[in-house]
Structure formats: structure tokens, C-alpha cells
């Protein structure tokens, strides 16, 4: 499990962000005391830092600069200031990404996973597994026992989202929102077509009934 530290002084955002990111299988650490935040980060061994700019004691820029003296943990700066100077400052001080408030949560997630993927040493997150089935995100193939099949971009996105959320019902709206946020702008009908094709491909390699339809609710991979 990857660990994220949230450095944010607004209590409600900190708490809600903690709940939200925990749902997506991240381990969250969110200090509420900002006096020696830099030492706190040194000790914490995090995989990623979400850093606000307007903070008590020292501002985010200072913290960013201090962290970079000893650590190369990825930092995503989150701020309500959206000027070019702020963005430039953050990047110059060694931040990996820059998101302005109010952010779309799906986009925040996408940025987090992109940064983590870029910086993590193991490429485990590139291969998603579900039972005996393995989805390789790098070459877009699905492997089950001895069978291998190629998937299209849309199918990969759909399958990977369903695998990530296995055991829970994913509504069509939720699935579509996820797709739209990852640059796949498809409509309702195309989604149905894609899911049908995906099911067929899975059947071809011997995986049956993994994507189930819950009428009126959505899809689920149990």
C-alpha cells in the first residue's frame, strides 16, 4: 500500500481528503500540527506528499525547498492560487505536479497515480490481477492461463477500473465519468458496445461471467 502525506491546514479538507483517498487504497497520514513539518516528513517514509501552499508557520514553498534538500519523494502542490508565478515557483522548487482548488476528485486521483507510477521503483501497478487473470497495462494484453488477447484502449480502461473497484457495484455514470476523465469521451451506447466486446474477448480466453450486470445499478466484478 502506498503512503500519502496530506499537508493541509484546513481541517475539513484534510479529514475529507483522508477519507476519500483511503477508499482508493492509499495509506494516509495527515498531520494537524505544522511546527516541524519538515522533520515529520523526513521520518515518515511516504511515497507521495500532497502539499498546500498557504500554511501556518512556514508556507508550502519553504517546506518544498527544505524537503528537496534531502528527499526526492514526489510532491503534488495543491493550492487555490492559480497564477503562472505560483505554478512556476512550485515547479522550480522541485514539485512534481500542481493542482488548483477546487479540484475534480477524479483528476486528483489520476494525477496522484500518474506521479506515483512515474516515480515508483517497481512497476507492479502496471499489472493488475484478478483471480488468475492478469491485465498488463503496458502492452494492453490480458493473460489467462495460456491464453493471451489484446484489448483496445477503451476496453483496457473499463476493465482496469472494474478490477480496481472489485467487489463493489460500479454504476454506468461512475464508469463513464472515469472514462471521460481519462480522455475517453464515449457516449452511453458506445459504453454498452465496449462492455459487450470486452465480455466476448474475456470469454474467448476462457474467463466467463466476470463482469456481471446488476440491473438498474451497474456492473460488478465479484
Amino acid at each position: 500500500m502506498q503512503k500519502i502525506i496530506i499537508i493541509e491546514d484546513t481541517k475539513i479538507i484534510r479529514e475529507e481528503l483522508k477519507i476519500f483517498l483511503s477508499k482508493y487504497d492509499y495509506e494516509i497520514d495527515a498531520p494537524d500540527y505544522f511546527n516541524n513539518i519538515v522533520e515529520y516528513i523526513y521520518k515518515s517514509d511516504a511515497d507521495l506528499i500532497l502539499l498546500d501552499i498557504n500554511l501556518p508557520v512556514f508556507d508550502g514553498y519553504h517546506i518544498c525547498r527544505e524537503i528537496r534538500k534531502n528527499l526526492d519523494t514526489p510532491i503534488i502542490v495543491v493550492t487555490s492560487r492559480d497564477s503562472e508565478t505560483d505554478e512556476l515557483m512550485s515547479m522550480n522548487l522541485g514539485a512534481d505536479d500542481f493542482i488548483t482548488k477546487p479540484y475534480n476528485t477524479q483528476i486528483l486521483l489520476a494525477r496522484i497515480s500518474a506521479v506515483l507510477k512515474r516515480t515508483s521503483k517497481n512497476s507492479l501497478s502496471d499489472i493488475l490481477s484478478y483471480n488468475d487473470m492478469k491485465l498488463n497495462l503496458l502492452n494492453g494484453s490480458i493473460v489467462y492461463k495460456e491464453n493471451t488477447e489484446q484489448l483496445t484502449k477503451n476496453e483496457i480502461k473499463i476493465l482496469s477500473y472494474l478490477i480496481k473497484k472489485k467487489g463493489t457495484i460500479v454504476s454506468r455514470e461512475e464508469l463513464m465519468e472515469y472514462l471521460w476523465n481519462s480522455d475517453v469521451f464515449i457516449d452511453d451506447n458506445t459504453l454498452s458496445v465496449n462492455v459487450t466486446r470486452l465480455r466476448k474477448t474475456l470469454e474467448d480466453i476462457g474467463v466467463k461471467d466476470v463482469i456481471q450486470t446488476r440491473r438498474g445499478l451497474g456492473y460488478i466484478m465479484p
Partner: protein
Amino acid sequence: MSIKEYLKERFLFIFVNSIVFLILALILAILEIRSIVIFSIFIIWFLPLAVYISIEFLKYAKYYNNMEEILQGLDKKYLLPEIMEKTDFLEGKLFYDILKTCNKEMHEHVNYYKNLQLEYREYIETWVHEIKTPISSSMLIIENNKSLITKNIGKEIKKIEGFVEQALYYSRSSDVSKDYIIKRFDLSVAINNTIKRNSKDFINKRINLQLDEIHAVVYSDIKWVEFILNQIITNSIKYIKSTGGSIKIYSTTNKNNVILTIQDSGIGISEKDINKVFEKGFTGEYGRKYNTSTGMGLYLCKKLCDKLGLEINIKSELGIGTKVNIIFPLSKFNLLN
């Protein structure tokens, strides 16, 4: 200043002199004085007078014509007192001092309002950033507590976010300072970001999005362009009344420009309204009917486009749809401007 105008001004003086001379000449003629004497008196009387008037005319004409020329050449006419020459004749001196004083007062007056506006603008910008925190936290709370109710609240908060953004860009657009950075960017990035922002509405209203492959690199400020696109796309979404509507986005690359077109199958704009859509506060019939329009969106788009040197035009047919073109000039010259 022409001779005619000048002589007209001196008419009374010349007239009185001429009358007096005529009376004198008449008396002298009655006294049987030789006409050569009368003529000499005329010369002695009128020659210095004519010379004086001519010299005066040349002096004034030189000064005022010069000033008029400067004035014509000035882009900002109120700057005249800054560059006009000081002269040594009395009238000119007085005139100069009066203008200088007026100018100074005017500057103070303008500065007062400039400062007021700057302060207000700074306040708005801070306010916008402050309000983003509660908006962010509300959205997170909604995300963590999904239900039909929170979903509806979420929609309303999205609207608040839109209005807040409008306020920010309004304050940016009306200031004299340049608040944008022209950079090279891929138009498709701006389009994709805008679509993603509105993904929920597209999905909920089942709007069919026909997005062409857009490979156009333009020179502009991406944040402002995204704001403009967002206004246009949210308008399109808003005025598509039935489900199953469509929005088509495509670009045409010409030699000197890139035209980005956003076409929707919405209710359209009537012919009598189409020329007024860029006016501030204009909502049209439908805006009043549905009471959801502020008349600010397109007005701001136009204003920002003007500032960025982009052209925006709108074509529409009632009941069929609306087509908005944004024209990005294509040359590196824009970077220098």
C-alpha cells in the same frame, strides 16, 4: 488658425481705424489738402498697423498650428499638456499654466479611481481564492457521502464554482494590466480539460460529443482560453433542452489562422438577438424565460478574446443550433505583441 479667422477677431479694431481715417480724410479733402498728403498719412497710419497685425498673426499661427498638429498626432489626446512647448507671450503663458494645472488635477482624479479599482480587484481576487477552500471541502464531503441529495447539492456547488470563476475573470478582464502569458500550447489540451470539467453534465444529459482529432498548436494564454471554452460549452449544454442532443467540436487550420468551432444542437438564438449576444447583461428571450442566464458569459468571452487578439463569432438558427467560431491567428508575431 487661418488668416480669415484671425482678421475676423481683429475686425472691430481695423474697422474703427478705417472709419476714423475716412473721417479725417474727408475733413482734409474739404480743407483742400493735396491727396498726396492724405495718402502719406494713410501710409504712416496703416503700415505699422498692418506690420503689427501680420507679426502677431505669424506668432499666434505658429504656436497654435504647431499645437494642433501635435494634438492630431497624439494617440492619447489628454497627454498634450505634457509635451506642449512653453512660449514667451503672455496669452500663451497663461494658457500653458492653466492646462498644466488642469492636467495635474485630472491625473490626481484618475489616480484616485485607479487605486480604488486596484484595491477592489485585489479584494475580489483574494475573495475568490478564499472561497475556493469551502467549495473544495464541500465537494469532498459530497464525494465521500454519495447520495441523491448530495449529488444535487454537488450540481449547485458546481454552479457556484462557475460564477466565482466568472467574477475572477471579470476582474481580470477590466484591469489595464496584462494578466496573461502568451505561450505555445496544443489546442486539444485546452479542449480536453474543458470537456472533463463538464463531463458530469455531458453524461447526465446524454449529450453526444463528436470530437474531431484536433492537432492545432496555437499561441495564447491557456487559462483564459479554457475559461472562454468553458463558457461556450456550458452554454451549449445549458441550451440543449432534450436528451440526445449533440455537441460537435472541430478545428480548421488555415495558412494564417486556426478556427475552432463548437457546434451544438440547442435551441438556437433568434435573428434579432444574435447581434446582441456579446453585450453585457443581454440574456435574450430564453434567458428571461428560464431565468438561468446572467448575460455575462459571452460578454466576458468577447472581452477576453479582444484582449488576447482572438476573434469570436457566433452563428445560429432558431431550433437548429448554434455555432461558435474562435479564430486563433497563426504566426509567431503574436508572441512579440
